[in-house]
């Protein structure tokens, strides 16, 4: 049996591409959760609200100190017992989104801290409402600085999606595994899966590097 069979590789490609769509969907939706929730975490932590601050700090520490796989299993098995039934796809989105939100919140925090104190003071001197200080002054300055770091987390999340095969999500690696288990040929599906990741991750990382260079210039 040859190491690589082109006919077989071409035959399984449509199924793998279909599974890649699922991988991308989870990445996009998970990123939306991570980017929005991370921002909420960062703003709440900056507000230093008693009790909320401590609870949030503990939550972030717990999530960051435990494996993503454990968190996904927890959501998959514990939520139904609490009366919440979600599909494996939705659990994947929520699990990845919340996990990465604890990291993006730190990124946002660094960006917010980098906004000079004088900007806050100038906004106070104009009596701008608190919400407007955030939306009009602080975040428009903080977020562009941290776009490269946020982009890196999105790429990292994309590469973590295969972890969801543990709960049965048919993303591209799991699709390759299923194809392999039916044909007992694993080299082609896993190699194609790897190439598909590379084809998306590499241009994305180039884009992030470009953003980094631009943020250094400005």
């Amino acid at each position, binding site marked *: 049996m040859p190491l690589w069979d082109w006919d077989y590789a071409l035959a399984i490609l449509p199924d793998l591409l279909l599974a890649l769509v699922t991988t991308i969907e989870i990445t996009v939706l998970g990123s939306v959760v991570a980017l929005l929730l991370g921002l909420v975490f960062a703003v709440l932590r900056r507000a230093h609200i008693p009790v909320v601050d401590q609870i949030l700090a503990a939550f972030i520490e717990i999530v960051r100190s435990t494996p993503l796989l454990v968190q996904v299993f927890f959501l998959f098995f514990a939520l139904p017992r609490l009366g919440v039934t979600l599909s494996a796809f939705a659990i994947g989105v929520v699990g990845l989104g919340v996990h990465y939100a604890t990291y993006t919140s730190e990124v946002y925090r660094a960006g917010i801290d980098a906004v*000079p104190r004088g900007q806050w*003071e100038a906004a106070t*001197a*104009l*009596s*701008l409402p608190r919400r407007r200080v955030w939306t009009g*002054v602080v975040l428009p300055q903080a977020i562009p600085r941290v776009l490269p770091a946020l982009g890196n987390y999105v790429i990292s999340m994309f590469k973590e999606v295969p972890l969801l095969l543990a709960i049965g999500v048919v993303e591209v690696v799991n699709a390759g595994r299923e194809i392999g288990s039916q044909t007992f040929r694993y080299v082609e599906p896993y190699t194609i899966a790897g190439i598909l990741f590379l084809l998306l991750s590499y241009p994305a990382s180039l884009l992030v590097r470009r953003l980094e260079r631009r943020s250094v210039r400005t």
Partner: protein
Amino acid sequence: MSAPDPLIVFDGVEKRFGENVVLRDLSFTVAPGEHVTLIGPSGSGKTTILRLLMTLDRVTAGSITVGGESLSHAPNEKALSVVRRRIGMVFQQFNLFPNMTVRGNLVEGPTRVLGLSKDEANARAADLLELVGLGEKIDAHPTQLSGGQQQRVAIARALAMRPDVLLLDEVTSALDPELVAGVLALLKDLGETTDITFLCVTHEMGFARDFSDRVMMLDGGRVIEDAPPERLFTAPDHERTQTFLHAILSH
């Protein structure tokens, strides 16, 4: 004829940062339209007075009122905002919003705080930029302007709120020497043509002399001398004022 009610009243104000006492039992008043300059060595509390008035810091003890309304002990955020919007501040480092154009900087407060329409705020911004000599820079970004131009925009931004009180915190200290004269001339012009009450911290003694109705000399968190400029600069009562002026004028 009786003197007008003071616009600004500091009554027994103390400000501490931890163990460090920056202002001690400070009491003074400022009349409407008066131009008061605060001088003194570093750490004497000049900038802290401005920061307390702008509510960037809070008093440790004592009280501050503006126009009879409490600034230091406002009952709620809304009441505080009403008093605070009577005050404008121009900072040493300009603090323009770099994510906005010059126009954006000038219309932000009037539209978001004063409730002006965009057209009204734009018209006000254009007038003020003409006043500070930067009418053609309305669509520029702050990073495209020189330090002197940025400070003029910052002055225009503060004026756009039509403040009763304008606080000037070493507004020329961060400027190249050749840009200082233009900004000071603009401020002198504003002092002569408006009825704004000015509180000014500066090391430009010539400007302080020409611009001020009163000069207050601070040392160690206290006002040690408070006199018209012509007296304070020529025949100061306090020995500390003499040594300070000697040091700064011979520099």
